[in-house]
């Protein structure tokens, strides 16, 4: 009791103090309701049963209160039970880990103290359960995309296209403007690294710099968009969002996915072909439904469509390696839903798996409606492990060829066996003939008896005449030509087998024609506690925006048609998020940050667009252009904004340090793959072979994960197997083994697959510096770089000039050149001395240039896109 008095006193004091000082007003909708939603609605309004008979979702329900009386008394926080319970920590219950903060409680106290004012009129009735307010429906990302009119700006001559008008309008507000145009060298380097992930070669730079054609820049962009390296670069961005991996994860064994690469190649090809995004999404969500669901004899188009569904098979999946139980299966389903919803719709729908979303208007039931779309193909009650769900790429013709080849092989085998026996018999007879005549018949008889049934006498006889034991294994000792002849049969069999097309498989999604399973809401996300069944459907807050119906079971198809309808709904052009999320993703890879800086979360906790109208304009333009991704690249890259210099100025720094308003081009560190690929490109070692099986990763002797074929001997590394140039392929093709991040890539931030990655971090850590200074990879590539230069010229001045062009895409200045020559000369002297002292056999002339090359590829100018 004493405690309670103390509490009451405290609250009174606090409340009066608040009233005295209350300045600006607290909004229920904006400030108070989100707090209550995050911490209270779960038990007080949104569940079937009302905790303590109290519903906190509307003010009038708070006033009428619950079992303990009114929760709220206007203007009297000290008399309001709501405040007492929150302040004392009685509520939320003690086992709830996430607690309202002191600041949040204060907001509620403030609101009550100010008279508990609400805006508008509360609904007359409210269903038990989930309730979406008008305010929530009006949240920016849930509203239909609307093509805004173009703003007027103070300097319209700065605008190259509409994008600039939106950006300039915002800059006008803060009295900033664009920076000057970047140099031609900078532009071509920026565009090349952006679109291909590789620096331009010096000839291309020179050509572009000297090209006076006004369309030169547009032509450059078209040329880069048309190069196969474009798909490799942008395919990799998409693979982050899809959570691509070449292994299953979950178990320690981290089983490999030998066929995942078909999906990787599909993505690369789709970007290169300029596949419309709507088609790309549809194939990935429902390629199996699009191609008719018949896998026995697919044509190229059907294979492509089915390969797209590899997207839905990318999350970690332990169900074939020890986690085949219900929990493991459900984990795959829920991770897939997380991946799909964050990558395509930018919503953290996964947060509504166990309870209604704490922040976004997404109910738990909504979550299971989305789950129902996928459950016919991902039925946890009738589950196939990854190794049992591969789809063979054999066509009927392939199968027939294989069958006839197998038959041929069998025939040859029969012939061979027959022939072998003939040779054995002939040799046997020859050997018998060599024996004394009187024993010939008895030895012959002894051999005719099966080995086990021979008498002691017969055994002794055979032992006495061992040369009569002729077997397939020793025939060659008696009759070399015969055994050589037999080998030709085996040879023919091997040749036939080799002629056969190897059977390859797709890691794909398919849906059995069986009756679809019933999807249930799981109480607290627990699959052991199913509640009500749900039908497939779109999120409630978005329902009615796009008019595609999701069927329960489309009779005209062998599948339910749920995923296909969902894909059509997403790509109908009416869905408010799909186009916005994709243009934002494209934007973020050009400028480093999206218009929304949380590309995977367009919800309440995500970032707000810096330029909402521009985002809508782009999204609309994207759909209008036929979901043409390359069109968006062109628009962005031909804007004045993109062509600015990245040099900062004080005025801009003061207002917008992060350059979110694009008063200057942001400087971005290259991603790990681009760092490695660019090093290989300048060293001249890059192998541009596209597509195909993943280049394997193994542990070297120090335990680092390096490229190589594992060759273990009693658990220890055996001899190194020559990779024949495969080790110099682009990073995209290096196996993404979850447990084996490539040592060269890891320090420069790899996507964290949890289960997918919608935004990569960009760190600056000492392990990056150590790698560039000391790793075998970098020092070896620096040497290759030097060898490349020495083949061009033996003259240091030429070497440093060419190196500069290769590494930085620009001409070296005289001052820098002098410093470079001085460095190489000094280094040569230092190394000569060092090699003498340490008795090393290396060549100080080449190596001094190699050290210079290493400095270039370790420098900021090389690692950053300016």
């Amino acid at each position: 009791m004493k405690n309670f008095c103390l509490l009451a006193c405290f609250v009174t004091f606090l409340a009066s103090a608040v009233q005295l000082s209350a300045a600006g007003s607290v909004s229920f909708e904006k400030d108070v309701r989100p707090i209550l939603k995050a911490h209270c609605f779960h038990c007080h309004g949104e569940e079937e049963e009302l905790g303590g008979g109290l519903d906190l979702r509307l003010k009038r329900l708070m006033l009428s209160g619950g079992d303990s009386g009114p929760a709220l008394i206007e203007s009297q926080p000290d008399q309001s039970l709501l405040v007492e319970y929150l302040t004392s920590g009685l509520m939320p219950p003690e086992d709830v880990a996430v607690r309202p903060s002191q600041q949040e409680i204060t907001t509620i106290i403030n609101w009550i103290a100010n008279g508990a004012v609400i805006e508008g009129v509360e609904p007359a009735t409210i269903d038990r359960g989930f309730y979406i307010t008008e305010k929530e429906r009006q949240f920016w990302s849930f509203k239909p995309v609307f093509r805004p009119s173009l703003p007027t700006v103070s300097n319209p001559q700065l605008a190259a296209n509409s994008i600039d008008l939106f950006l300039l309008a915002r800059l006008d507000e803060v009295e900033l403007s664009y920076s000057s145009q970047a140099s031609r060298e900078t532009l071509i380097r920026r565009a090349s690294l952006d679109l291909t992930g590789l620096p331009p070669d010096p000839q291309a730079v020179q050509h572009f710099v000297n090209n006076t054609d006004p369309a030169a820049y547009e032509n450059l962009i078209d040329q880069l968009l048309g190069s196969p390296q474009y798909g490799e670069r942008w395919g990799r961005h998409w693979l982050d969002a899809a959570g691509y991996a070449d292994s299953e994860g979950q178990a320690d064994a981290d089983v490999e996915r030998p066929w995942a690469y078909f999906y990787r190649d599909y993505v690369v090809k789709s970007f290169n072909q300029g596949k419309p995004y709507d088609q790309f999404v549809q194939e990935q969500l429902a390629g199996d439904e699009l191609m008719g669901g018949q896998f026995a004899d697919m044509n190229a188009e059907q294979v492509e469509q089915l390969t797209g569904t590899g997207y839905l098979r990318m999350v970690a999946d332990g169900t074939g390696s020890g986690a085949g139980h219900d929990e493991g299966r459900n984990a795959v389903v829920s991770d897939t839903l997380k991946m799909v919803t964050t990558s395509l719709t930018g919503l953290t729908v996964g947060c509504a798996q166990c309870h209604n979303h704490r922040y976004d208007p997404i109910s738990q039931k909504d979550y299971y409606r989305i789950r129902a779309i996928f459950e016919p193909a991902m039925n946890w009650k009738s589950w196939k492990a990854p190794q049992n769900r591969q789809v063979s790429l054999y066509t009927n013709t392939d199968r027939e060829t294989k069958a006839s080849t197998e038959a041929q092989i069998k025939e040859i085998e029969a012939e061979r066996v027959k022939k072998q026996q003939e040779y054995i018999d002939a040799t046997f007879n020859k050997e018998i003939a060599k024996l004394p005549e009187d024993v010939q018949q008895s030895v012959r008889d002894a051999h005719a008896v099966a080995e086990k049934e021979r008498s002691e006498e017969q055994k002794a006889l055979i032992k006495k005449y061992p040369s009569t034991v002729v077997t397939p294994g020793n025939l060659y000792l008696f009759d070399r030509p015969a055994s050589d002849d037999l080998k030709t049969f085996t040879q023919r069999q091997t040749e036939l087998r080799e002629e056969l097309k190897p059977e390859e498989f797709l890691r794909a999604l398919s849906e059995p024609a069986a009756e679809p399973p019933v999807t249930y809401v799981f109480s607290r996300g627990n699959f052991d506690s199913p509640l009500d069944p749900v039908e497939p459907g779109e999120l409630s807050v978005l329902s009615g925006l796009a008019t595609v119906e999701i069927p329960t079971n489309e009779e005209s198809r062998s599948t339910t048609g749920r995923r296909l309808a969902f894909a059509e709904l997403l790509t109908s052009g009416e869905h408010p998020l799909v186009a916005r999320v994709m243009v934002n993703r494209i934007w973020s890879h050009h400028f480093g940050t999206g218009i929304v800086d949380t590309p995977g979360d367009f919800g309440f906790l995500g970032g707000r667009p810096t330029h909402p109208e521009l985002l809508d304009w782009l999204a609309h333009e994207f759909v209008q252009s036929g979901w043409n991704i390359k069109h968006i690249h062109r628009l962005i890259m031909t804007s004045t904004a993109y062509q600015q210099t990245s040099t900062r100025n004080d005025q801009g720094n003061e207002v917008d340090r992060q350059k979110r308003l694009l008063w200057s081009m942001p400087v971005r560190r290259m991603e790990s793959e681009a760092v490695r690929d660019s090093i290989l490109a300048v060293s001249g070692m890059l192998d541009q072979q596209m597509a195909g099986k993943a280049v394997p990763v193994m542990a070297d002797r120090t335990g680092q994960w390096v490229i190589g074929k594992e060759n273990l001997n009693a658990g220890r590394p055996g001899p190194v197997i020559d990779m024949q140039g495969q080790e110099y392929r682009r990073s995209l093709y290096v196996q993404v083994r979850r447990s084996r991040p490539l040592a060269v890539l890891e320090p420069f931030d790899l996507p964290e697959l949890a289960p997918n990655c919608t935004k990569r971090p960009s760190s600056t850590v000492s392990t990056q510096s150590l790698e560039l200074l000391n790793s075998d990879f970098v020092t070896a590539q620096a040497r290759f770089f030097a060898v490349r230069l020495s083949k061009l010229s033996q003259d240091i001045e030429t070497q440093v000039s060419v190196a500069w062009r290769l590494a930085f895409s620009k001409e070296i200045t005289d001052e820098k050149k002098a410093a470079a020559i001085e460095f190489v000369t000094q280094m040569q002297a230092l190394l000569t001395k060092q090699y003498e002292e340490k008795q090393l056999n290396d060549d100080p002339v080449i190596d001094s240039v190699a050290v210079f090359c290493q400095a270039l590829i370790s420098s900021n100018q090389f690692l950053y896109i300016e």
Partner: protein
Amino acid sequence: MNKNTNRRDLLASAGMSLAGLLAAINLKDQRLLANPAKPDLIGKSFNNSEKPSPKTAKAKAMISLWMQGGPSQIDMFDPKEELMKRDGETFPGDIKYDNAAQASSKIMAPPWKFRAHGECGMEMSELVPNMGSIADDITLIRSMHTGVNNHGQSIRAMNSGTTAAMHPVLGSWLTYGLGGQTSSLPPYMALIDPGQLPVDGVGNWHNGYLPSIYQGTVIRPTEPRILNLTPPIRLEGSPQKRLLSYLQELNQSDLQRKPGEFDYQARIDMYELAARMQTAAVEAMDLSGETQETKMLYGIDRPETKDFGTRCLIARRMIERGVRFVQVFTQNQFWDHHGSILKSLPNACKKVDQPSAALVTDLKRRGLLEETIVHWGGEMGRLPVIQNDTGSQNVGRDHNTYGFSQWVAGGGFKGGYIHGATDEFGHKAVEDIVNHYDYHHTLFHLFGLDPEALYFEHNGQKRKLIETDQSKIITKLLA
């Protein structure tokens, strides 16, 4: 937990900070309400240089000896007469088992003898004689509680403040708040075991949503302990020095071309750190300068203690050189003795008892213990009843996160003190319960940090190590 206690504590602390609270309402809140919090971090710069040391700080560094799996407090630290009396009888209360299939309610008294140690008379069992020898320097907490009965969740509770995965861990928070005390070594190091990584793998030293410079730097259990740490032999010495000076020239000129580019500056710093690390880290991990006596103190001369002793000694050397936080890990489920406890528990103790005690002794004689917290413990303890009652070779003990023991020493913790108690069976903590929130709050207090003030804005929320405002400092633990 008792609700009245909760409320009383809350009021006590709320009352004390009332002025601050009101000030916040007046100024901050109104402003915050007007502008929604910005989750943006781009453009901010983070580094590991030493932050101004809080005036109230008692501790400057911490070594956590992380005993993953659940060391049996019943057999090592928490003697109970009642268990001895009722060995083999049926346990009278409720028990939460992890493994129901092998569960039994038969009480198992510890088969090892306890005796009092030091002037304080702290009782510990014969399994850990060396820890007994440092009894007067440590605080033995017998009332630990996380209440989540699985390894993963309880590890996260103890190590990162919440049961959810991928929350920044204690070491990340400490370095975020304080930086390192040296510019030659990473401020936070994870010394992993040669065996399998503990449950949760790299999550144990993950920075979560904090910038990645606050991630623990893994020191590999075998040579080379840090990759790429040594220059190629061709470049050792003056060639590399020249390379670095030229590289920094290039980088400086890039910074001049792009003034104000924080990343360019940071990379210049990182090259300097990397260069210093080449000598500093090699030197810090080189034990050849340690005396034979010291090596023997840590048990480096004996096979069973060689690995753990070496890592404890490296930990001391790191702290000596200004590293802020070092965590030394045992291997996966090292203490998870569901079965064969009679054999495996003594083996586990033999591996860590001597090196752990040696670390405290060594720090103390070097005058480092005063400013260095040493923590010894894991995510749980074990039950007073038998698991797998199928013969003495097989018996074990199941999980218990409702009452377990750990010890802490130095850095402002009391010596020779036993804190809290479990019930008569050593099962649940009942007296002076220490949950992970209070433990972390107390650690922060010793480092002079306010857990409320040390936050990081992530997705528009202020995230903290302790995500409840009801944690408290356990003053009884303080010297």
